[in-house]
């Protein structure tokens, strides 16, 4: 009986796979220097990013389903509670079945940092670093760094002005950016490898200025590019997380070290 269910699930996944107009691909990003909202040291926010490869869409439910079919220890109900909270994959119908509100082409959400990490490792990859992600997401449709444009900011902020309870759109619903990468903004939040590096973890949060972002006003002192609210809010979101947390609007994409040019 159990095998039968698995078999059905596999067939279903294969059917979805066949439907995929495009699976996500790793695309090459040429590195460079840019000004980050988070300085490496005080006053020094000029950051050098090496070449890297990154998935052109966030990981979808279909892709993540395939992963947990191969890796049952990451299925809902089996995953260790040290690594996932109790809302892990909660929008799915079951441990290996999706649901109408979490369709195959929607980005997977309700995944923890640990689960995202395990997925990327299975693809011989890793999560992007914050700087890689920020570099990638500075682009708009025709410019590598569009952050100075008021329209670019307002466009992103308007996503924040919608409630989060609605159905999440499929990946690739919006046009790609300058790097031919989709959905860096306005679809879901995304895990980054070093999400907890700008704020320290729970037990030493009261030391020094490490968690200044959480205080009224103090954040305004340590952040660079203060007017860049669109990115600042993403930093705030990431800094509220612990590695086992999952949320309704938080997904991820994977990256690889980028020695190889395509």
């Amino acid at each position, binding site marked *: 009986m159990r095998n039968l269910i698995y078999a059905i699930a596999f067939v279903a996944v294969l059917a979805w796979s066949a439907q995929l107009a495009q699976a996500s691909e790793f695309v090459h990003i040429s590195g460079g220097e840019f000004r980050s909202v988070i300085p490496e040291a005080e006053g020094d926010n000029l950051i050098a990013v090496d070449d890297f490869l990154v998935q052109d869409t966030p990981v979808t439910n279909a892709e993540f389903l395939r992963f947990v079919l191969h890796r049952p220890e990451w299925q809902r109900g089996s995953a260790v509670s040290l690594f996932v*909270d109790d*809302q892990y994959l909660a929008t799915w119908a079951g441990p290996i079945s999706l649901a109408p509100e979490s369709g195959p082409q929607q980005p997977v959400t309700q995944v923890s940092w640990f689960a995202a990490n395990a997925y990327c490792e299975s693809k011989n990859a890793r999560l992007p670093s914050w700087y890689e992600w920020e570099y990638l997401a500075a682009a708009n449709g025709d410019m590598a760094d569009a952050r100075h444009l*008021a329209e670019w*900011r*307002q466009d992103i*902020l*308007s996503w*924040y*002005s*919608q*409630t*989060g*309870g609605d159905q999440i759109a499929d990946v690739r619903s919006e046009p790609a950016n300058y790097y031919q990468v989709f959905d860096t903004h306005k679809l879901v*939040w995304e895990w980054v490898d070093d999400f907890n590096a700008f704020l320290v973890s729970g037990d030493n*949060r*009261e030391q020094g200025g490490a*968690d200044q*972002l*959480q*205080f*009224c*006003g103090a*954040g*305004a002192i340590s*952040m660079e590019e203060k007017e860049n*609210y669109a990115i*600042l*809010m993403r*930093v*705030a*979101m990431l*800094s*509220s*997380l*612990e590695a086992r*947390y*999952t*949320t*309704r*609007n*938080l997904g991820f994409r994977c990256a690889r070290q980028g020695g190889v040019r395509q």
Partner: protein
Amino acid sequence: MRWLTIVVIALAMALAACQPQPAGIESGEANETDTGGSAAGDFGPPQGEPIMAVLTTAPNVPPPVNRDYPAKIIVDMEVRELDLEISEGVTYTFWTFGGSVPGNFIRVRQGDTVEFHLKNHPDSKMPHNIDLHAVTGPGGGASSSFTAPGHESVFSFKALNQGLFVYHCATAPVGMHIANGMYGLILVEPPEGLPPVDKEFYIMQGEFYTVGKYREKGHQPFDMQKAIEENATYVLFNGSEGALVGDKALKASVGDTVRLFVGNGGPNLVSSFHVIGEIFDKVYTEGGTRYQENVQTTLVPAGGSAMTEFRVEVPGTLIIVDHSIFRAFNKGALGMIKVDGDDNLPVYSGKEVDAVYLGDKVMAEELSLVSDVTQAELTGSATKEQRVNAGRVLYNGTCSVCHQQDGKGLAGVFPPLANSDYLMADKRRAIEVVLNGLTGPVTVNGSDFNSVMPPMSQLNDDEIANILTFALNSWGNEDGEVSSGDVAEVRAATERPQGAAH
């Protein structure tokens, strides 16, 4: 005898040193009414069973604490991000403490230990936290309560200072979280409680910055640039233009003493809080311990509060405003207290409050006539009759002050609209006059006028169409209909005066 005196003094000093006492007692006569501040606010560990806090939605206030010992109070509050109506036919995504703006009112006693549970609903997009100005300690609780969507944080504090305090979200960017409605009030009662009154209400002002202009229909996103420029689209009491008018007006009876707990969430503007037709018998300025008496208007800082008390002497409608007065009439900062009871003619001769102050709010019950036609407009099915009905409501709110309810105007000052040759001669000109105003000499029905009508730039195309259709079919006028398309066309074709709203 001398030795005895010294011993007594030494004893007294020793006692003073080990008993917590209000600081004022030690520091002499000058401070004899000093409350002692936070140093005198700790009455020891909480006693008895923990108590679940009663949380209320504005304008309601929880009942007085009525307790003579320090307790542990559990506050259970959930952050929700919700689409709610900010004005008739206009929605906005509010971020809320407890599902409404302002957030739930919290009421505790000085010395209470508050165990705060902050939950962030799973559907939230944003992390949130809470900074309570009633907390003594860095960040006011903000760092301990930083909560991701779908999660919960718990922290405790002792309410050492009495007073009326603002709480707000302090997650970056702080201004945006506050601008979206994340604020409320916590009252820390003095140990003996507040003097009893007949009615208590909770009113909190805040301003909103939307991409569309005031009353532009549909869903309106937050406008960061307007917020930075402090150019508010709406200034509101209790988070919505309709929150305190019509059926939702506050109610009191002649002879009642009314206490208003007034907060100002900001994020930017300071409130000149005033109640038209009342004088505050007492104002606990800035939500503190002392009161000033016989006050007309009190300043409420952004991130601050005030408690006002007054006895209502005569029936009628009292109008709550921010007396930075364009905010009241053009941005929505207006509420009402309806007082019932018998006339008291020696005190006040009894004329109902002037329509100038009420504007279209007096017709709040009839606002549905306006929204009906707005809906119909969307489907292209608006009828002339609907326009006339909606236009009457809008006319009475906006135009009747000058042109008079009967359309006859005032001789020599405001031209008539009733049986008006000027109005009826040229529909397009009529639209232009409403849109752009009219300055200089005109002749209407044989009489000369030479004054100024300001551009009605707060009105949208729908509203102008309805008002003009009403005017073209009232008081003996019998001709014509103006559609919002007609207005849009004129609006697009006219060079607008510098400074008129977009």
